[in-house]
C-alpha cells in the first residue's frame, strides 16, 4: 500500500492557528522529508515475510535526492531549500515578542551579555515501542493501540477514515510507558486501521526499535539566544530570549511546536522576574518531527535561566545562590503572574530552595572528603529551582480539546463500585491513584472499587494522560460524581434508618445516624441492593439506579492568549529545587553524580510511592538529557547517525545515582483536595543542576557550559582549551 492507496483517507487537520499548515498525509507520496517517514506499508502473514517484501520493495524505489536542510542555520539562510515552498520560508511558527519596557530596562542596565544556549535532540523512548492492532468487523472498527489518549485517537481515526465516531472503539491496554511520545496520533495507526478495513481481517503492526528511533517523535532540539542586563550586585534587570526550536519536518499530529512556547513561558519559574521578553521561532528541517516529551519545554527553559544566573554570578564574583535568593518567590507573592501570563497559585519556592541548599552543602562536604586524596578529581555542587506547569489546556497545543476530564461511577448491586475515567494509565500509577481516591471519596475499601480506563467503549470521553494533569482532573471528576452518588445513597440509607438524610453519615463502610455511635448501621451493600435491584425498598418517588457522571475542568484555566500574547495555560504549579553533587575526573573527563537531591512540592500527596516513583524516574530521564542522549544527523546527507541503543545512550543502573527526595505540601488552593501534578517534575531539573555542578567543580578551568549533553569528551576539550589559553 502506497500513498495512492490511501487517497480515500483524510489529511490530518492543521488545527493550531499559529502554525503554518503541513497537510500531513498518512503515507507520503512524491516528497519525503525525513528518514523514517512512512511511504509504504506491506501486509504479510508474519513480520519476517513483511520485512522480506519491504527489502525487495526498497530495492525498486526510484529516489531523487534533494539537498537536505539539517540545522537552524541552514533552515533560516536565504538560499535554504524550502520544505514547504508555499510558505516562502522554513518557519512554521514565528512569534516576535515586543515588550518595550524590557528593552528599556536592558538599555539601562550597567552590564550586558549575549549568549546562545543549546539543548540537544532527544526522544521520549518508552521501553515499549508503539503498536497497533486493528480489526474491522460488523461495521465497527476496533483498534488496540499503545497510546496515551484513547479518545483523542478515536476522534482522529474516525475523522480520517470517514467513520462514525460511535463505530470506532479504541483500547489502550497496559501501555508500556509513553512520556509524551504516545500522545500523538501517528500515520501508522491510520494505515493499519485502513488496511484492516480493506483486507477484512485483523492487521497488526508492532514498531521495532530501529523504526522507533526514526519514526516516533523526537523532542527538545532548541537554542536560546539571550541578551541579559545586570549590575555589579548580581541583580538581573532584564532579559530578552529568542527561543528557536528545530521541529523536524513538522509532519506529526499534534504538532510539536508548543514545547518551545512553554520553554519561554516557564523559564523564569520560581523567580520574581518581570522583565522578560520572549520571541519564538520554530523551523522545519529534514529530521524526524519533534513532539511532546516529558517536561514539554520546561527543561530547556530552566537550563537557560539557570545558566544565565550562574554566568551573572561569575561575572560579578558572587555565589550563584546569592543571585537567586533575592529573586526567589515568596509565599506572600502568591498568586504570582509570570511574564508569559502563567499564574502560579501557590508553592514553597523559598523553603524548597533553602532546604536543598542545606542538603547540598552537607553533601558537598561529604563528597569533598571522599576525594580529598585525589588531586585529579574535582568536586562541585549545582542547584536549580523551577516550577512545573500542571493541568494545562490542550487547546493551545491542539487547537481542539481543552483541559477537562470525566468520570462515571456506578454502584454495583453488591455494594462495590465501578469507576470509569477518561484519563489513562501508562505506567504512572493512575489506576492505583484512582482506586485510592475513589475508595476514599465513596467510603469504600480499595478492594470494592473497580477502575476502568483506556477503553473508549467503557470509559467516558476524556483526554488521556499528559501534562501532569491526571491526578487533578481525575480527582475533580471522581469527587463530583461521588458526591452525586453519595447524596442518593444517603437518602436510601436514611429511609432504612428512619432518619433524615441530612443526619446520615458514612463511616467505615457503613451508613449511620450522626451522633449515635454503636446504633443501627446500614452497609453499602444493603444500600446498593436496594438502590439497584431491590428498588421496592426505595422510598416512594425515588427511582432506581446508583450512578453518576461528572466532568471537571479547573475554572481559571485559559485557552487563548490575550492581546499581548499572555496566557494562563496551566491550572496549578508544582515547584521544586534540585541539588547535584558531582565528582569530575580531570583525566578522563568522567562525571560521577555522587549525590542528588530533590526537594519537591506537588501539593497534597495521594500516594507517596507513586509520587516518589514519578520524581526519581523523571530525574533519571533528566540525567539522560543532561549527559547521555543525543540524536545527531549527518549535515550533508540527512542520515541519522543513530541506529540503535549502541548510539542512543539510555543510561543504565550504573549511571543513574540514588536520588533522595523530600517533600513540602502546599495544597493548590483551587484544585480538588489541593492536588497538583508530578508527572514531569523530575525531568526538568537535572540539565541545569548537573551543568551548574560541573562548572562549580571545574571553576579553575573557567568552564562555562552552554550546551547539553555534557560529555566527558566536551569536558576534556574544555580543560585542554583552558590549558592552552594559560
Amino acid at each position, binding site marked *: 500500500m502506497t500513498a495512492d492507496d490511501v487517497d480515500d483517507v483524510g489529511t490530518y487537520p492543521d488545527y493550531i492557528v499559529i502554525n503554518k499548515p503541513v497537510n500531513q498525509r498518512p503515507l507520503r507520496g512524491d516528497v519525503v522529508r525525513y528518514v523514517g517517514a512512512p511511504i509504504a506499508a506491506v501486509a504479510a502473514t*508474519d513480520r*519476517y515475510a513483511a520485512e522480506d517484501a519491504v527489502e525487495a520493495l526498497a530495492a525498486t524505489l526510484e529516489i531523487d535526492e534533494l539537498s537536505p536542510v539539517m540545522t537552524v542555520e541552514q533552515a533560516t539562510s536565504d538560499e535554504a531549500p524550502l520544505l514547504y515552498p508555499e510558505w516562502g520560508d522554513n518557519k512554521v511558527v514565528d512569534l516576535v515578542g515586543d515588550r518595550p519596557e524590557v528593552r528599556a530596562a536592558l538599555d539601562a542596565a550597567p552590564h550586558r551579555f549575549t549568549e546562545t544556549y543549546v539543548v540537544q535532540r532527544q526522544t521520549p*523512548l*518508552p*521501553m*515499549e*515501542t508503539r503498536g497497533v492492532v486493528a480489526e474491522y468487523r460488523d461495521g465497527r472498527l476496533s483498534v488496540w493501540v499503545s497510546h496515551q489518549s484513547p479518545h483523542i485517537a478515536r476522534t482522529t481515526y474516525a475523522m480520517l477514515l470517514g467513520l462514525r465516531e460511535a463505530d470506532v472503539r479504541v483500547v489502550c491496554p*497496559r*501501555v*508500556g*510507558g509513553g*512520556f509524551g511520545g504516545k500522545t500523538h496520533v501517528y500515520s501508522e495507526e491510520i494505515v493499519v486501521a485502513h488496511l484492516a478495513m480493506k483486507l477484512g481481517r485483523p492487521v497488526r503492526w508492532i514498531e*521495532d*526499535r530501529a523504526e522507533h528511533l526514526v519514526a516516533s517523535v523526537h523532542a527538545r532540539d532548541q537554542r536560546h539566544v539571550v541578551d541579559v542586563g545586570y549590575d555589579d550586585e548580581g541583580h538581573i534587570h532584564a532579559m530578552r530570549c529568542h527561543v528557536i526550536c528545530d521541529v523536524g519536518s513538522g509532519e506529526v499530529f499534534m504538532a510539536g511546536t508548543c514545547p518551545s512556547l512553554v520553554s519561554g513561558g516557564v523559564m523564569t519559574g520560581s523567580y520574581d522576574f518581570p522583565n522578560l521578553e520572549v520571541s519564538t521561532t520554530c523551523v522545519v528541517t529534514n529530521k524526524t518531527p519533534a513532539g511532546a516529551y516529558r517536561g514539554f519545554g520546561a527543561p530547556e527553559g530552566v537550563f537557560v535561566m539557570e545558566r544565565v544566573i550562574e554566568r551573572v554570578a561569575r561575572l560579578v564574583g558572587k555565589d550563584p545562590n546569592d543571585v537567586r535568593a533575592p529573586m526567589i518567590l515568596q509565599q506572600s507573592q502568591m498568586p504570582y503572574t509570570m511574564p508569559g501570563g502563567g499564574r502560579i497559585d501557590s508553592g514553597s519556592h523559598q523553603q524548597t530552595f533553602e532546604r536543598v541548599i542545606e542538603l547540598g552543602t552537607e553533601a558537598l562536604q561529604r563528597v569533598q572528603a571522599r576525594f580529598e586524596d585525589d588531586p585529579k578529581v574535582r568536586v562541585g555542587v549545582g542547584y536549580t529551582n523551577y516550577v512545573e506547569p500542571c493541568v494545562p489546556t490542550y487547546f493551545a497545543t491542539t487547537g481542539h480539546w481543552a483541559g477537562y476530564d470525566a468520570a462515571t461511577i456506578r454502584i454495583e448491586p453488591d455494594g462495590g463500585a465501578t469507576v470509569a475515567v477518561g484519563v489513562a494509565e*501508562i*505506567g*504512572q*500509577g493512575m489506576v492505583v491513584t484512582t482506586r485510592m481516591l475513589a475508595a476514599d471519596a465513596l467510603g469504600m475499601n480499595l478492594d470494592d472499587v473497580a477502575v476502568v480506563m483506556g477503553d473508549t467503549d467503557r470509559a467516558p470521553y476524556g483526554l488521556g494522560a499528559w501534562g501532569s494533569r491526571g491526578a487533578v482532573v481525575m480527582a475533580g471528576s471522581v469527587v463530583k460524581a461521588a458526591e452525586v452518588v453519595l447524596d442518593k445513597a444517603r437518602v436510601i440509607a436514611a429511609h432504612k434508618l428512619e432518619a433524615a438524610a441530612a443526619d446520615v453519615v458514612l463511616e467505615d463502610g457503613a451508613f449511620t445516624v450522626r451522633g449515635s455511635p454503636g446504633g443501627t448501621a446500614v452497609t453499602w451493600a444493603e444500600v446498593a441492593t436496594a438502590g439497584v435491584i431491590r428498588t421496592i425498598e426505595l422510598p416512594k418517588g425515588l427511582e432506581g439506579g446508583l450512578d453518576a457522571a461528572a466532568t471537571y475542568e479547573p475554572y481559571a484555566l485559559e485557552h487563548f492568549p490575550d492581546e499581548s500574547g499572555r496566557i494562563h495555560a496551566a491550572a496549578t504549579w508544582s515547584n521544586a529545587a534540585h541539588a547535584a553533587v558531582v565528582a569530575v575526573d580531570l583525566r578522563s573527563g568522567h562525571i560521577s553524580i555522587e549525590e542528588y537531591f530533590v526537594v519537591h512540592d506537588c501539593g497534597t500527596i495521594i500516594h507517596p*510511592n507513586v509520587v*516518589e*516513583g514519578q520524581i*526519581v*524516574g*523523571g*530525574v*533519571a*530521564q533528566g540525567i539522560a538529557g543532561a549527559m547521555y542522549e543525543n540524536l545527531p544527523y549527518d549535515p550533508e546527507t540527512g542520515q541519522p547517525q543513530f541506529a*540503535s*541503543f*549502541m548510539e542512543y545512550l*539510555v543510561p*543504565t*543502573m*550504573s549511571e*543513574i545515582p*540514588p*536520588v533522595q527526595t523530600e517533600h513540602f505540601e502546599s495544597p493548590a488552593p483551587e484544585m480538588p483536595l489541593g492536588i497538583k501534578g508530578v508527572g514531569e517534575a*523530575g525531568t526538568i531539573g537535572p540539565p541545569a543542576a548537573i551543568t551548574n555542578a560541573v562548572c562549580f567543580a571545574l571553576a579553575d578551568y573557567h568552564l562555562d557550559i552552554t550546551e547539553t549533553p555534557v560529555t566527558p569528551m566536551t569536558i576534556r576539550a574544555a580543560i585542554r582549551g583552558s590549558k592552552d589559553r594559560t
Partner: protein
Amino acid sequence: MTSDTTAENRRVPIRLRVNGSTESAAVPPRLLLSDFLREGLGLTGTHVGCEHGVCGACTVLIDGTAARSCLTLAVQADEADITTIEGLAEPDGTLSTVQQAFADHFSLQCGFCTAGFLMSIAGELEQGMTEPEIRELLSGNLCRCTGYQSIVEAAVELAGTREA
C-alpha cells in the same frame, strides 16, 4: 548450494523444555527464540524492546542462566531447558521471592522491563553481592520509568546485603 526457495520453506524440528513442559515444533531457522516464545507458545510475558541485545527486556533463562531470547535462534534452543517469566511463580500463583520483592519495593511502573529484570536476577544474582556489583550485574537491563532506585532496593534485599 542451497537454493533460496528451499531455504525459505525449510523447517527444523526442535524439542525443548519450557517452564517444565516439553514442547516440540518445526521452526524456520531464522525464527528468534523471543518470537517462538511469544508467538509460537503464547508466552507473551517475555517482552521485546530492541532486538539487538541491549535492553534486556527479552531475558530468559537458558539452561539455568540468563540470556537474550532476541539474540538466540529458536533452533539453537533445541534440547534446551528454558524458563520464562511465566515459570517463576508457583503454579497456584504465589509469587516467587524475586517477584514478591519487586512488589514490596514498587520496583515497576509500566512493567515493560520487569520480566527481563526478574529473569536476570533469577539467573545471575548471587547471595552477598554488594550494591555496586548488583548495579553492574543489572546494567544489561534498561528501565525508562523507575530511575532504577526501587529495583536496586529489591535486588539488594534479595542478595541479603541490605545495610542495617
